[in-house]
């Protein structure tokens, strides 16, 4: 996997790296425009995680999401279409790379604020971030 110079500079500060996949269940109930409530990535207590890309297991370009870190960094001012953030299974690369690798510090979580589509609603739904756990 191609990593940026920024990611390489981060990785070289650690002694060990391990692949990690963080899945978050969104909890859509199939209602148009619903906002199911904030969901969070699992808290990793034994290392930092460098997030590389994301996938969702549904296809609905009307779904919106806003992502922020417990550090207070918001990735966008508003919710944005999920298709700009995560890949889907029908694509050549089902995991869409983040515009820049993101370092999620130990015990920090990403907060995700979803909104279901306005004309077609998804039920359930999972988003998965792939990354490297750094120890």
């Amino acid at each position, binding site marked *: 996997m191609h990593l940026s*110079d920024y990611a390489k500079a981060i990785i070289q500060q650690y002694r060990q790296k391990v692949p990690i996949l963080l899945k978050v269940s969104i909890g859509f109930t199939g209602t148009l425009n619903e906002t199911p409530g904030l969901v969070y990535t699992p808290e990793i207590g034994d290392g930092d995680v460098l997030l590389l890309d994301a996938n969702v297991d549904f296809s609905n370009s009307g779904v919106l999401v806003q992502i922020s870190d417990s550090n207070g960094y918001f990735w966008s001012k508003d919710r944005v279409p999920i*298709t*700009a953030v995560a890949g889907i299974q029908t*694509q050549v690369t089902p995991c*869409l790379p983040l515009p820049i690798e993101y370092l999620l510090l130990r015990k920090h979580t990403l907060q995700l604020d979803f909104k279901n589509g306005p004309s077609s609603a998804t039920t359930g739904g999972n988003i998965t971030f792939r990354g490297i756990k750094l120890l």
Partner: protein
Amino acid sequence: MPSLNPSPLPQPIIPWYFRLKVGTRIGTLSSLLNGYNYRHVSSPLDYEVEVIGINANFDPGGVFGKIAVVQNPERWTPFQIPLLVLAGQDTQRETVLSLPEPYLLRRGEKIYIDLINNSGANISNTILTIIGRKYTNGNACPAA
């Protein structure tokens, strides 16, 4: 061999997504009406961002556009071009279509988009997302 490099971690760079609802507002959604021309300008940024690509949550076929920084509207696209060469969508391999070269938007600059829908039909729920990298302390970092 474990690294013993004492250098600190680099300044954080944050993934950046900017939502632009383009078209006519109908309720909470926006729609590109057939034959209509739209111009949108973003709010000025209060930080530096390196823009790397654009995504459309709709089929951009038949839509023509122009995108630039307000301070120099001719800089990127002197003429209207098909939106499908500016913005990717989820049915394509490159969902976020990369710019030929990342562009550093400076503090205070505004993004300008000019669109015309010549597809023959109205397109509803039209959102462009501009994707980039936000520098938290204004320190530039080499592009990947």
